[in-house]
């Protein structure tokens, strides 16, 4: 099953990857091979196999509802490329009207 170039572009957009034409071509080939492999797996009868929700045989890992103060704000913001008024500053995300 060969992925179309539109499908590859869509996946690249969702993953925020900026692919060159050569990379796009390679991704199409490799992703198609992965999908083919899953097509092959689909031939197995899994009717009696419970879905794997987690690889560990562990459930109910919980913590008591107790709070403790957050990190000092200077530390929180120290690696931010830009900040203002105690907040992280990013390029505007909602388009202007």
């Amino acid at each position, binding site marked *: 099953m060969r992925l179309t170039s539109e499908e590859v572009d*869509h996946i690249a*957009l*969702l993953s*925020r990857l900026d692919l060159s034409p050569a990379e796009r071509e390679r991704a199409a080939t490799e992703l198609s091979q992965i999908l083919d492999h899953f097509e092959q797996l689909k031939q197995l009868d899994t009717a009696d196999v419970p879905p794997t*929700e*987690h*690889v*560990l045989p*562990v*459930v*109910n*890992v*919980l*913590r*008591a*509802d*107790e*709070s*403790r*103060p*957050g*990190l000092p*704000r200077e530390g*929180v*913001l120290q690696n931010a490329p830009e900040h*203002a*008024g*105690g*907040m*992280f*500053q*990013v*390029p*505007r*995300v*909602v*388009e*202007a*009207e």
Partner: protein
Amino acid sequence: MSKYEIVIGMEVHAELLTQSKQFCACPNEAVAPPNTNVCPVCLGFPGSLPVLNAKSVDLSLRTVLAFDSKINTRCIFERKNYFYPDLPKAYQVSQRLLPLGEGGFIDIDVPNGDGTSTVKRVGLHDVHMEEDTGKSQHGESIGDPDSSLIDFNRSGIPLLEIVSLPDMRSVEEAEAYMTALRQLLLYLEVSDCKMELGRLRFEASLSLRPWGQEEYGTRVEVKNLNSMKAVRDSLRAEIERQTRILDSGGVVVQQTMLWDEASGTTQPMRSKEQAHDYRYFPEPDLVPLDIDSAWLERVRASMPELPRAKNQRFIEQLGLSSYEAGVLTSSREIAEYYEAALEGYTKSDGGAAKAISNWVCNELLGRVNAQNSSIAEAKVLPAQLRELVQLIDAGTISGKIAKEIFDEMFTSGRDAKSIVEERGLTQMSDTTELEAICEKVIAANPKAVEDYRGGKEKSFGALVGGVMKETKGRANPALVNELLKKALTQ
């Protein structure tokens, strides 16, 4: 009537009443200086590990039990992937395949327009646990049209999303749904439901279809609704907009609209994030939940009597009117106040429940509402109200004086008894003393006496009023009636 049937569904996000966040110990606070309630987990740092808050599971369970949903006792968390700056991990931990609750319902009271209402059952699609995102402010509002500012205090606050079926058929039903849901969440003490702080958020989806058509029309989601009024107004505006489109032969486009309070219109949300392809998959950092029956029973035992059951009990067992029961169960605080005041109080004529109800509904809530306060802040405690009513029963004070005393109690929080003693407000029930006053009033009002004897029953009232004036309202009214009649027929 419009040509189209209105179809409304609701998505509700409720922030849960916990001390800490869903997956880390940062404080769950609605108001705090920006980016002070944050840590590596809720900032989405690589290598940090989320651990689920036990209380938040309990609160969520309480809610799905109240909705009578099917509970997935084994449930898992999944990652909902999308890029947005207020989502630091680039995914939101949520539930999709195995949400905590599936199905269930909320009964709502839909007003008939004549003071009565009809019960309608609104079905639920699912109820799932997730985490809140950070908060962003954009552009001009922050003095920089090219930037957005992000505060992550809200990131990771425990959130319960309640998704209804498209079962509502009018704006009134949508309002009744919001009221019933809010009341239930408050009773359950699951959320403080403060809409102005975003603790409870509604999103509506609305479509129109010609009457009789089975398929739903194209659905438009409306967001940015921070009050019940905003929901109501935005739905009305959206109904008008879609009606105009359909009337002119157009096609409604499936999209998300934002309510603009200032212009009173819905506007298409213009966002760079168009690609809603969430690619859910099981969250590998969180193991499944496996809720056994002991856990469920413990939560069930922690549940209060729910508003509908309470309402019915007040009507059937206490003999209250449905109006009174509605007022008294409108919030858990009011209902608990009422029940505390009623506790241990009986009346020989069986009117105890009604008597306390009158005082709570009229006198207490009247004053509380006039002050824009809440019953929880009232200075008069339930036992003090009961004592006041008992003083009337015992004939120590008249009902009229009781209201004056209550004014003082409401302002100062003092006991009725001490106010009565201090102000000498004890009801006069001394026959000899009252007889003398009746004689005096009769002597001073020859005209009224003559009229009464001539058959004008009304004049009797003037004489009673005279006695009350003489005694500053303290005379026992029943006794005054009796003594005056006796004196006048002599």
